[in-house]
């Protein structure tokens, strides 16, 4: 089944996709680029936008869903205004990640991959982010925060509007 859509991304996003589709040997290979543009614009990837991605790349919608579900960073539901990710892998684990995870869960009353009632917070445990030498670490909306202590976590999160 070939997908059709009337949706359009912001003009500069459409232009970037057009440019890449000219440079790639195959249009369908730009799927990850298209998915990132959708997520950057909307914060997540709603189903109708998967249809858009399918149409834009000339692939079946099922393929898009397969790709979206394969990668941990593509979101199939909206997250909080501040999305916190705490690394749970080996060095962070040795240096206190579990305490940070419990602290964040308690602080906002949120379970993993859930959004707080006020919509401001969501959090997720993640695997190694490449910050082991500066463990433990977390990200807030993608920005790295390293060498954490519980006090530093509070300072960072309480400083957000």
């Amino acid at each position, binding site marked *: 089944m070939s997908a059709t859509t009337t949706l359009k991304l912001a003009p500069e996003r459409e232009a970037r996709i057009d440019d890449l589709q000219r440079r790639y040997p*195959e249009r369908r290979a730009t799927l990850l680029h298209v998915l990132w543009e959708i997520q950057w614009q909307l914060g997540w990837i709603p189903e109708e936008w998967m249809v858009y991605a399918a149409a834009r790349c000339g692939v079946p919608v099922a393929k898009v869903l397969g790709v979206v579900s394969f990668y941990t960073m593509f979101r199939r539901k909206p997250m909080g205004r501040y999305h916190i990710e705490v690394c749970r892998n080996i060095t962070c684990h040795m240096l206190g990640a579990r305490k940070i995870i419990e602290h964040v869960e308690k602080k906002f009353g949120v379970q993993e991959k859930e959004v707080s009632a006020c919509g401001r917070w969501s959090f997720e445990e993640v695997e190694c982010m490449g910050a082991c030498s500066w463990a433990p670490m977390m990200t807030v909306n993608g920005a790295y925060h390293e060498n954490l202590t519980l006090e530093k976590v509070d300072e960072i999160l309480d400083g957000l509007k």
Partner: protein
Amino acid sequence: MTLILTARWQTKDSHTLASYESAGGYEMWKKALGMEPAAITEEVKQSGVRGRGGAGFPTGLKWTFVPQNTGKPVYLCVNADESEPGTNKDREILERDPHMLIEGSLIAARAIRCKTIFFYIRGEFDLAYRRIVTAAEEARRAGHFGQNIHGSGQDVDFIICKGGGAYVCGEETGLISSVEGGRGEPKVKPPFPAVKGAFGCPTIVNNVETLAVVPWVLRHGAAAYKALGTEKSPGTKLFSVSGRVKRPGNYEVPLGYPLKQLLLEDCGGMQDGYTMKAVIPGGSSTPVLPADIALGVNLDYEAMAAVGTMLGSGGIIVIDHTQSMPDLLLVLAHFYSHESCGQCTPCREGTGWAHRILQRINAGEGTAADLKLLESVASQMSGATICALADALVMPIRGFLKHYRSEFEALLRTEVQA
């Protein structure tokens, strides 16, 4: 001590084009544009540079595997999908000297007659991603890539691909699947990517650290590079040290450097109140060494193999005396089962089984039969899959049990006879 990769890390604004060019940046690219591709490959081959992503395969030799005159385009994929737990070296190259990496990639592209470089960077990287995007834009404007580069008549395009968060995309065929816009599922080899890779065309996949040394090799010559390190492991390498040492971080040392000197002198030894129990020397998938063995080994491919482990990615994880080995192995089993792409049954099921067995053992609910089962699962996973992800868990399981079996046994529940 000669520094290649980190030479400019302390320079102000080392990540900018102006800084890089003021230190002679892109001169080697201009030189390479006038060289025969085979001559570039030969220089890199003679230098003895080996792949720094983990496997240690000779880089120049890999480039010679690209068949000539197939009529198909040739692709270069830069593997900046650094995600082996314990490793953060490529990230710092990306952040501090992205132009050196771009120049190395362009020279490599010329060596294999590639006109499109896919620069695949892991999706989570934040500053590193912004730095490479900005650097690529600067390099494009300066005419270092694009069409008719510096009047040479040659064209090279440079496309940055942002990953979506999947460890398995660091495996070269998984990376290719992702570049092609699909799930990052590894592919059966042979055919090897050099013959049939991205879009069915000859493709070379090289690690960030590998490509970053190429400009230096061209400038100073293969002999100068070969003079560093050991005979079989030439050159320098970046090591990421993590854990409770006083000064964790990335360190560039010549291969063959004593691990003891790196950990006890360069890193300042253990933090006060902590003693060294064990070291995972080359990223989480390499077999663990008890501290006494680790402190007697040198950092090169051969010395590591001699004590039953690997140099791997250079991610040195220092484990202190407060850590429980069964607990750490549980963390790793959780990780590898989470990251299994699910194509191969032994990996998809085996990593999950290992994870659940280790959960039981750590919860005090495991039995002697569970420990045997863990070993059996490990042997059934090993060598039975498309890529090395299953073995990336088998190696730590075997290493942890070889040296710390008693810690696992101490957690087992005693079977009560009915």
